[in-house]
């Protein structure tokens, strides 16, 4: 059974092997001693080797560890992390469809609501922060720094 490090090592090893296989399709120039696959193969081989060492060290550490002596871990709110990632991913994918202004307003409102406790939601503050963030960033970047922010394919704004 693998631990956290072992799983991480396994993912790195599988990724390196897959990319190593992909380097086989790279051309080899006849006139120069090394081609485009030379350096990637070195890096990927080293990565694969380090990943194997990590898997081995994890297996050894798990064998040495006495049962029942795991250190207590602090409680973490992974549900909130997952929700934040989901809201952010939705924002990223809606950005080219709704445009910067609408998508940002919705995102700031949604994330504030997700991060605030249900009983302590201050709607005026939530809406003020969302409007201010959207307008100020839009004004500064488009008006002053000449950065053209995303326009929505669906909305045209």
């Amino acid at each position: 059974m693998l631990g956290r490090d072992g799983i991480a090592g396994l993912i790195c090893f599988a990724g390196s092997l897959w990319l190593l296989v992909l380097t086989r399709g790279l051309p080899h120039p006849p006139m120069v001693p090394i081609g485009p696959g030379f350096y990637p193969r070195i890096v990927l081989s080293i990565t694969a080797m380090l990943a194997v060492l990590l898997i081995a060290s994890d297996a050894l550490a798990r064998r040495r560890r006495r049962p029942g002596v795991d250190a207590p871990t602090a409680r973490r709110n992974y549900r909130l992390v997952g929700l934040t990632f989901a809201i952010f991913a939705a924002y990223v994918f809606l950005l080219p469809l709704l445009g910067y202004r609408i998508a940002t307003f919705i995102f700031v409102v949604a994330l504030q609501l997700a991060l605030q406790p249900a009983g302590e939601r201050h709607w005026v503050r939530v809406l003020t922060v969302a409007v201010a963030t959207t307008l100020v960033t839009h004004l500064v970047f488009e008006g002053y720094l000449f950065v053209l922010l995303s326009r929505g394919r669906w909305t045209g704004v």
Partner: protein
Amino acid sequence: MFELLGAGLLNVIQLKYLLPLFVGTLAGVVGGALPGVTITMTIILVLPFTFGLDPLQGLAAMTGVYVGGSAGGLITACLIGIPGTPSAIATTFDGFPMARKGQPGRAVWLGTWSSFWGGMLGGIFLIGATGPLAAFALEFGPWEYFSLFIFALSMVAGLTEASLLKGLLSGAIGLVITLIGTDPIMAVPRLTMGSEFLQGGFQFLPILIGIFAFAQIMTDIEKMGPAGSAEVHAVAAPSLKVSHLKVIGEILSRPFLLLWSTWIGILIGVLPAIGGSAANIMAYDQAKKFSRHPERFGTGTPEGIIASESSNNANVGGSLVTIMAFGIPGDAVTAVMLGAMIIHGIQPGPLFISQNPGLAYGLFAAYILAHPLMVLIIAAGAQLFIRVVSVPKAVLIPVVLVLCVIGAYALNNIIENVYVLLLFGVLGYALVKAGFPLAPLILGVILGDQIEVNLVRAIMTDSNPWLFLTRPISGTLIALSVASVILALWQHHRAQARMAQLPEQDVEF
């Protein structure tokens, strides 16, 4: 040199440069004062605002953030006992007890003026040493550069606290990321899986923002209660009135402590891999060892504050020397600074100072001027910054994430960079949860292309691989790389037993 510096100072005191420098320093002080917002994060957030500026304006703003951020951490360290940045950890040891004894003004101003003097002395080193070191680096061929980059990478990977293997693997993952795109020999698409977007490779900035910002933000969110409680409460602002002459006198009456702490800060800044977070602890430790009254440390002694704060601002000068002379970053903060320079079209390295003297001395001038600005900003707003700490994370996090999206998007005005941001945000968080340090990964991403180019150049020039070992400078650097890994192995072996007994701790980025 002095003529160029004078011209740089005259240039930077123009409003068009002074304003970004001031705003950058202000952002740095506020970001540094906010616990949980590191200097790295502040630089990332300020960077998009500099896209529309000319290179010197942008560099002035970034230098201001770096200098301001290194000092800003002391405000919360002294007044509420929470270091705003890791480089102010040791300031908490004596700054907070001094404030609790009813001398908050003395604590804050001892720290501020120590930062000022440490930073200015670091500036002398920066201005004096960059040119000669860059001239030395001009002797380097591709073998030496390759070995230097390997040395930097091995130092960063080896000095990570978690695990040497994970540090090395993290650096290797950074190198793997740079493999994707067009290869530098035949310009053929490599590992792009048919994607047109990937042919240009991943841009540095979205990777950086994704990895650092998400790792930081998501670990903060993890600690929020099930209801996402707003955990920071308003803090009563104490009076910070103090006799500045008296405080400056207190610092300058300890010249050995000031100079020694400054030197430690500079030295740690110059060395790859060790940053301000180590500098302040080491300077504090040295100050305690040299003190006639070591028992007073931790009870509110001025020596503790002077040592910590003078070293962390001197560290900025030392780090900038390494970036400007060799083009290699020392730690995560300087990696971001280097990335910022590259985005502004500046390639730091040995030729930078000779090819762009106006820009180089403009940066020196900005560094010097950032220090009095930092003092003025703290004088005007220290009490206000304490109130900023009370901004709930539920408000701060969405705003920070919006700025991250703009930063990634505005780089080329393409939405794909925002997808890259999300991808690397997930990867960064996953790596942190798996206990991987992020600094080696970022260094790998920054140095990857240069490592490949120099390796290829070296082999194209002479296919004898032994030249990497037989050329004196290259051989020395390779030997140092091996030594740093062996040293790290030894240190990890020693620490293993101790670490096995410790409970899960927060991850250092």
